[in-house]
């Protein structure tokens, strides 16, 4: 285990969550997942320490930005994952505290590299 802090995965698609958990789990990271705003809220309020978060905005409404603000206020770095390249979405992500926006499909190696960087920063 590289760190005690978990990676919070927010994604409405169950299969996406499974795959992310599978690939990141191989890297030895602790994972917690949320597939709805309620679960996201629970994770933010929960006892488990969230190190970094990956927020896939696909299927969420504007309320997702409010949760992003909460991550920012907790000083938890996070990335927004978007189904398409969009300047508006990128601006919204950055203005709500995201480190950056990644477009699906993600490259596994690239993702792990970025997460590792963010976790090191946290430590």
């Amino acid at each position, binding site marked *: 285990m590289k760190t005690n802090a978990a990676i919070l995965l927010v994604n409405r*698609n*169950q299969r996406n969550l499974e795959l992310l958990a599978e690939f990141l789990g191989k890297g030895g990271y602790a994972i917690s997942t949320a597939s709805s705003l309620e679960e996201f809220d629970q994770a933010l309020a929960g006892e488990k320490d969230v190190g970094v978060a990956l927020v896939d905005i696909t299927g969420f409404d504007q309320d997702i930005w409010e949760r992003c603000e909460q991550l920012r206020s907790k000083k938890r770095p996070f990335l927004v994952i978007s189904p398409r390249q969009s300047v508006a979405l990128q601006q919204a992500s950055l203005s709500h505290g995201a480190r950056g926006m990644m477009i699906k499909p993600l490259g596994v190696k690239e993702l792990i590299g970025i997460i590792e960087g963010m976790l090191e920063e946290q430590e």
Partner: protein
Amino acid sequence: MTTVKKGASSNLASAQVYGDDSSHQNGKERVSSQRLSTGVPGLDEVLCGGLIPQRAYLLRGGPGCGKTTLGMHFLAAGAANEERCLFISLGESEEEIRQNAEAVGFDMSNINFLDLSPNPDFFAHMESYDIFSPAEVEREPITQKIIEQVEALKPQRVFLDAMTQFRFLSPDAFQFRKQVLSFLRFLIEKGATVLFTSEGSESAPDDDLQFMSDGVIHQDFSPDERILSESKFRGSDFRSGRHSMRLTATGMQVFPRLLPEMYKQEFVAESISSGVAELDEMLHGGLERGTISIITGPSGVGKSTLGLQFMKEAAGRGERSVVYLFEEQQETLLRRCEAVNIPIRTMMEHGTLSVVQVEPLQFTPDQFANIVRREVEQQKTSIVMIDSVSGYRLSLRGDDLVTHLHALCKYLQNMGVAVLLINEVEAITGEFRVTEVGISYLADNIVFLRYLEMQGELHKAIGVLKKRLSSFERTVREFEVTRYGLKVGRPLTGLRGILTGKVEWIEQPTRER
């Protein structure tokens, strides 16, 4: 009598399997001894004996062309030889394939399956994803399953349907190419002969796979016929061209295009007598074996009867003849012949004559040629009559029928068969034309029958227009079909204008016969 040796002598028995390819080209053996049968009748012949083992072959064609059926033949042939066979499916499920195979009568019990097709959960349980590309997610487990199965089974035959699915598992064209090449090499090193399909179309070309494989078999279909062709076969010759193919309730059958020069048979180019002395006189002996004769004339003049007269005489010598009827009903022909003293039923009973009725649109020219080939090679038939040329053109499906007829006739000629082509000309009288379908160039012999009007009576006349192997009588004689048989009279030397049908006497005749 002259003895003509055409090419190297061939063994007819072996020609029925694959061996006819080995009997040509100056007797050089071009076929390597070890070949794997594809299990499809006729396809091994196209491949000069079968597939070379431990190679990878591409099978390409649109939907419904028969790729999977060919694959099943390939595996079933292996299983029948107790070889270890593996079906890797990326599209259809094992259950579907087994059901389809059993419906066609394949025994799939000894064939191993690796079913990599998506299961219903993928849809029903929302197993679709978009976070990573399929190349990242699916490639590894699929590759792992294949490796495990191949390592465990060590298959000798692998059929993979369809390789193009792997394209979705590769991030780019370069990696796809590298992965396919490496995958094929892996299978081959494990001792497998691989047949893999591609779903190529204009929008998704599969040229790269064609470059990577050791052989490419194309399957195609048009409204008229299904076609199979080979465009590449490393390390072997193959029979080029478009071969007719059939998918039936019992599987696939290929009818290799007839290449006449591949068949040579030693025979004696002797004349075959008609049994009518005057007619033999006109032909200076008769019609020779290994020649093509066109019997031409208007409707009802006696062309078929004349052809059958040669067969009657041949039957007397114990030789076998075949008539392919494209127009007339068999029963009509039988009755007609019996009425003119040709014992056609007895000949059929004795096996010296076969009358084959060809239904319209039943066959393609390649299929028909294969039927004729079987007849000639298995039954040692010495006279073949096609009744009629226009019936052949109307009944068979496809284009370019004159070329196919040409090839068939040349083949029969090389096999020493006397070919009789019955040709009907539409004009009863008037300007003389040999044929109306442009086939007279084919003929070694042309015998014509004409109607003549003489003193208000309709008469028939017979003449010889061309004979390549001997001289012939240049006069025209009266011709009659009577209940005792054919009658040919003395030369009509006192007439002129016979070929126009409007006959005039040069001098008053003394008619005698």
